[in-house]
């Protein structure tokens, strides 16, 4: 019975962190998008120019607009289009928070296999987020 009870406890911890991180992510996504659409923050690429640009490939779009890649958007939050990436980043990071939250339970029960799986999953997600894989 013990493993099942422990498994249920992990699931509940994961579910709780997922619930709150997702809510925060969705609120950030909607609020920043409204700010962007209403022009409360100026856009880096003006909205009326986008129909001329969104048919280009990513490479061409970046070249045409001079949009920086990687984490540069975080330092350009005064621009509406970059600010609205905040919610996307929080949602993309939800799994990292959730996995990190259940690791102490695995450590407590000395479940080395799942500690290793969680650690590797976090490494994969963090490396992907870091931009190390390039273009």
């Amino acid at each position: 019975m013990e493993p099942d009870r422990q498994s249920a406890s992990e699931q509940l911890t994961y579910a709780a962190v997922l619930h709150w991180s997702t809510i925060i992510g969705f609120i950030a996504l909607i609020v920043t998008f409204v700010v962007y659409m209403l022009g409360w923050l100026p856009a880096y690429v003006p909205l009326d120019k986008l129909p001329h640009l969104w048919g280009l490939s990513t490479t061409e779009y970046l070249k045409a607009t001079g949009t920086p890649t990687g984490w540069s958007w975080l330092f350009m939050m005064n621009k509406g289009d970059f600010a609205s990436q905040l919610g996307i980043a929080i949602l993309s990071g939800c799994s990292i928070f959730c996995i990190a939250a259940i690791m102490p339970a695995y450590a407590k029960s000395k479940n080395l296999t799942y500690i290793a799986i969680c650690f590797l999953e976090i490494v994969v997600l963090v490396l992907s987020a870091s931009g190390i894989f390039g273009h």
Partner: protein
Amino acid sequence: MKQRDQAGQHRNFRFLLWLSATALLLCFALPAEAAVVAAKAASTTAWWVWPLSLFVVCFFLGMIAVPAGVGGGVLFVPIVGSFFPFHLDFVRGAGLLVAMASALAAGPSLLKNGMANLRLAMPLALAASISSIGGAKLGLALPANVVQIALGVTILGIAALMLSAKKSEFPHVAQPDPLSQKLGIHGVFRDVISGKDIPWHVHRTPMGLVLFLIIGFLGGLFGVGAGWANVPGLNLLMGVPLKVAAGTSSMILAMASSSATWYYLDNGAILPIIAVPSVIGMMMGARIGAHLLTVLKASVIRNMVIAILLFAGVRTLLKGMGWWI
């Protein structure tokens, strides 16, 4: 009286559904022509028409995706990629976000009521996360028409899979394999209809890991999520009860899509003006879709989704080949 009310409600929902389908087809037709104009010359359409159209289309897609048992991404990418003026790179980035957001939103309740199993999801999600980065990297490196052709073929394959795939509510697993035992992958599923607790185990875990490497790669490459492949993989290959397979699929999808989404985000392939209205529209439509599931036959909606996938698959394929711009 009550029966008449129910019949009336049924008729209303059926009408709503066909209205959605008609609106969806109109949405196909309208931007299709404009897409050509927008791609070649600056569109004369006001910029706000596009995110608004995207929101409306995604709302209807969300309505039919839930009852049909497919993720939003698999409908989103071929339809928006074929009929809107956006480059496929941005559509795939938005598709991943749509798939991930839907899976994240469903996650907490699936985990709480035991419909998703974390110990089953974690190893498979690790395999899928690693390969989805490879898929995303390849997807952004390949010419758009090549990805479009491959996507068209894949979408037609998915439609064929949906037409032919068998399902097993409670697959028989004679003996759990050693790896699943080592990983402690098992559980007890409470069947609400019979009120019984049904213990389950899995088999063929190594094959499952290999399969999820492939599924993750395709998910990252096309930005379509992978619910369409996760569920048959878990249910038919590994012997997971159907409802646990569907719930666990969401958890795997959320983790695997995250790694690919980061890659797209880092490389500037997610435009908020495309991604955000899509996510919001899909989430709102999915809430109505969940209600439709209780009043309409799932098979009717499923057949409609298969028809849409066949149409979108052919359109995507022909667009990739340059035969139907």
